[in-house]
């Protein structure tokens, strides 16, 4: 039987990442805002003011926990004390769901504090699916896994990322956090068709979408979370919500963070794309037309890697 849309989890609307720099004003003014996503690691060991502030935020806004250290693809054993901490935090603040990334962060007991890519092949898939199942057992809730941005591909790869994610979600019975900016960044870095990626993702398993800014670094894109969402990413988002339907959407802004109003205003731009997705059915060929926009001269000059990029077939 096919899973319920979004695994039965709610559409929370348009949210922003909860950042410490915004907490003082947030606690003073309690602005109208749909929901927040917190970075779990910022609160796991904290028993000071930040944790106190989080408890107050949890009483007033829907929350989602987003982790960066689960290291689901590592060859190290899962960190049971980390998982216990996640479970305790979840019990305290009652998030709508808990998410992390398709990545590994370290081996041999070390961490790089980075979201490192995995070789995309059958054995990694088996490894990751088994570990997601364990995490879901421990947390007693579905885990939501995000596609990371990446800058390398391995010689050991045997399948594209979208196929890996789709099979992983089905086999592990987990949810997906579709980061549209990451899809776009990786598509430029690796030369694949981002529209095809979106089309291959099992829509009913997408619980949340991420948006963010990226930076152009000459001959590659870097996922920097330091600015507004770019036009190509908005267009890809429009395509995603047209296909997936209305879904919780969140803007991440982690460097050169502006006032909360600015971040909120940026994510509210998603409304127009959500409206279009429900009122304007995509005509035949619209996806390829949108894809063609990326290859138009102006886009090529902004992202030269796309010039002559070979799309995977």
């Amino acid at each position: 039987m096919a899973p319920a849309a979004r695994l039965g989890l709610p559409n929370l609307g348009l949210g922003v990442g909860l950042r410490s720099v915004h907490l003082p004003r947030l606690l003073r003014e309690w602005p109208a805002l749909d929901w927040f996503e917190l970075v779990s690691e910022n609160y796991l060991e904290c028993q000071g003011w930040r944790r106190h502030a989080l408890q107050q935020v949890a009483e007033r806004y829907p929350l989602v926990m987003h982790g960066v250290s689960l290291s689901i693809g590592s060859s190290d054993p899962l960190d049971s004390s980390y998982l216990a901490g996640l479970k305790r935090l979840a019990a305290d603040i009652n998030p709508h769901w808990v998410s992390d990334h398709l990545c590994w962060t370290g081996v041999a007991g070390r961490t790089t504090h980075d979201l490192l890519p995995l070789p995309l092949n059958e054995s990694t898939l088996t490894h990751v699916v088994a570990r997601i199942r364990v995490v879901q057992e421990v947390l007693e809730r579905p885990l939501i896994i995000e596609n990371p941005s990446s800058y390398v591909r391995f010689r050991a790869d045997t399948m594209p990322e979208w196929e890996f994610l789709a099979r992983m979600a089905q086999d592990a019975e987990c949810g997906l956090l579709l980061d549209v900016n990451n899809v776009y960044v990786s598509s430029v870095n690796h030369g694949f068709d981002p529209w095809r990626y979106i089309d291959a993702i099992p829509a009913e398993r997408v619980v949340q979408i991420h948006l963010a800014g990226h930076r152009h670094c000459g001959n590659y894109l870097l996922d920097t979370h330091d600015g507004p969402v770019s036009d190509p990413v908005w267009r890809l988002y429009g395509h995603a919500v047209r296909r997936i339907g209305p879904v919780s959407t969140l803007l991440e802004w982690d460097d050169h963070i502006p006032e909360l109003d600015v971040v909120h205003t940026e994510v509210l731009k998603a409304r127009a794309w959500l409206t279009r997705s429900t009122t304007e059915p995509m005509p035949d060929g619209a996806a390829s037309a949108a894809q063609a926009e990326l290859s138009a001269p102006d886009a090529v000059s902004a992202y030269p890697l796309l010039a002559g990029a070979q799309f995977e077939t």
Partner: protein
Amino acid sequence: MTMSFAHLLELQTWLQAAISAPEQAPLQARAEHYLQSSESLDAAARLAIYQRSYRARLLQSFHAIFPGLLHALGHVALDAFALDFLQHSPPHTSSVNRVADGFAEYLHRTRPAFDSATGPDWTDFVIDLTRLELALLEVSEAAGLELTSASVPENVRQWSDAQLLRCQPRGVPCLRLLACHYPVHDYLRAVRADDSPRIPHARPTWLALTRLHYRLATRELAPVQWQLLSRLNGAITLAEVLETVTTLGFRPVPSLELARIWVGNFLVQGLVATAAPEQ
């Protein structure tokens, strides 16, 4: 161990080492073996993106944890110390706030040879400041007394001498004590106020750091007060602590009446919680 798992372990072990030690040529030479090239970047150039990101992220964390050190040393020197430290003590915990755990001990271990007879020097200042900034981070994250009700100082003043001697105060969980060669707390306060302070003159400085109503507080104590506070662990009586501290020879001699005032002040300042004596 299956063959496929062994391959994953081998690849991850290599990539982690290659990212964190870009100067090791044999590791970099393996990039072509594991990584695909793209249209515009070869395997080494793609690996270099992760190397730059690793270094930048960790150094950014050091800058955030050590604003005082950053002011005292500047970016170049702090980054050099940090990178050398990380090479020998790579991060192990999920919290990026803890990437500098052990940094003060590293600085002490690797300090230039010095003559203890000439007194503290610039290196001691750097180590003291490092310990202070790490301790403040710990205080901000540790359990505090915000959600508990501590004894009020009036109680201490009302206790009989016998009750006071039997009480067993203990430092609060977020209490950190530092014995420094320099008044680094004044220096750090000036840095935070954008006052561009110079390195102060050496002066033995006895600090107690705590958190009160979610605000960090730094108290400079007299040596005898610091010695007394450091022994209030909730397991021994104030009488026993006074007896021990008296033998250390500090002035003023810690009489019972002074101890009554000090313990009362420690309570008000959020440095100790008392275990009230039996009536």
